[in-house]
């Protein structure tokens, strides 16, 4: 095997190709919780919505910053928690709900 097949990055988020170096750099530049990392790197915002990367990053940040996972401001998931084709959303029907109408995020 040649050298090139040995030099792979460490991928933390496969959806958005975020690497361990990206995460460590963001921490060194002052990101102290997951909300910050998410906004900076888009972690957790790809098609799998953080199912792989968030547990990895929680471990990395907890160790690096000496914090407990619950102190890392784990981002609140929002609907839709999984990607939905726009063509389906366009076929939504109007449902009269109690209160003043349209749906909102819970």
């Amino acid at each position, binding site marked *: 095997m040649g050298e090139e097949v040995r030099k*792979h990055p460490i991928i933390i988020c496969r959806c958005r190709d975020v690497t361990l170096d990206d995460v460590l750099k963001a921490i060194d530049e002052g990101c102290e919780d997951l909300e910050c990392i998410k906004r900076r790197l888009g972690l957790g915002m790809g098609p799998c919505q953080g199912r*792989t990367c968030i547990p*990895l990053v929680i471990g990395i940040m907890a160790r690096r910053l000496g914090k407990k*996972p*619950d102190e890392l401001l784990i981002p609140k998931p929002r609907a839709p928690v*999984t990607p939905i084709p726009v*063509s389906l959303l366009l076929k939504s029907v109007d449902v009269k*709900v*109690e209160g003043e109408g349209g749906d909102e995020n*819970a």
Partner: protein
Amino acid sequence: MPGMPPLKDRRIWEHPILTFKRGRRVKFYFNGNVVEGYEGESIAAALYAAGYDVFSRSPYKGRARGAFCMIGKCSSCFAVVDGVPNTRTCVEPIREGVKVEFQEGLAEIPSATGGLEGKDEEVIEGVDVLVIGGGPAGLAAAIAAAKHGLSVLIVNEHFKLGGQLIKQTHKFFGSKDLFGGLRGFQVAEELESKVRSMRNVRVLLQATAYGFFRDGWVGVAGKDRLYRVKPRFVIAAPGAAERHLAFPGNDLPGVMGAGGAQTLMNEYGILPGDEVLVVGSGNVGVIVSYQLLQAGAKVKGIVEILPYIGAWFVHAAKIRRYGVKVYTRHTIKEVWGKDRVEGATIVRVDEHFKPVPGSETDIPCDLVLIAVGLTPDTRLLAQAGAVVTWVPELGGLVPIRTKYLETSVPGLFIAGDASGIEEATTAMIEGEIAGLSAVVRAGADDAGNAAERREALLKFLWDEYRASPVVAKAKAGKLKVTVSEDEMERIRVSNPPPVRFGS
């Protein structure tokens, strides 16, 4: 597109204990080439069986990607299917003539004429219990609720019911009413036929609950339409995802979750690799190694960072008989290969788990399995407003719950791996407890049988099943997040639930 490996037949035709029931032959296309699979296979499985293991290039770095979790939890197996990009090929069944194409980086915006044609959303009101997830917990919950006359809607992400039971080929321990003596996939068959025989249970396959909304509406996305569901109660049993590790090359095709390999091998009868390195010597790592050996693969070694094997003795003894090398006090340093795994380097660690320079070993292999545990898939529960907390013993973020498995969102219950990682038997017990809780709360327990059965299950679960020292860790974790009704009321005061069920 990366260079293709020589095409081969990865299907397992002879197996010492399993016979694979294959459906009728189905022809479809990958990049214009005809691929033959069998009805009931996923696209990812059928491609893999034919030797295609790279389905896309990643969006920003152009890295090769293929199968990883095989159960629709990650984003590795994306391809373009009938013009629709980002399709999870592992949970998409093959169909005659379906056109699968390699996805080169970021998807194009689908045109108005191509791709999916949506049907009108269906509004489902008046259902008593919405069960999210058709694995062991969800099916047990559905059966318990439906038995007492409640109407049940099951939404299941996969195109088959049964969750991860369908890839479990080992026999269950325990008594007959806990399915002792049956293999996991047989348990799934029993649960499924029971559910299918109940007229007050409706099942939606390839359907994902995507959010909780005002006034207790739940959004469900099906394959060709949305559903808007207004249930009286919700039982969430969405399962778990595999944990991953950070090492160079950890995204190469050929690095796979142990569960992903079990899906290929045990469910579809497809050999996931010829020469395998397994990372993690817990039960899953050791069981998957044994199953690989039975299926005809060579297990090059099992890597374990601790000084001892984590698996229960009964499982560890099986691989010992085969002489599989277990590298204790070792970790994986990197994986190498061009576009797919060609080998891995492992390294010894010191007592602080730090790699010891100079102690590296190169291991040529074409498959590296990550068997380092699962993490509960609780995103939907957190979106619903259920208070979650990080519990390492349970694999990650889990909801706080009462002993009856109700979360801080009234009328929203949890069961199975999403309530904290254990295994299929506890998942079924929790599912039944959650189902019975809905019965009791709905006022459908006329004779008091449901309440009585629930107490008996709770007693068995906590005092007998979880009394075993081998599950002490999970028990400790579950104790941490199980609170009294009074405590839950206090939690609800400080974290007001945005939606409420159960009225």
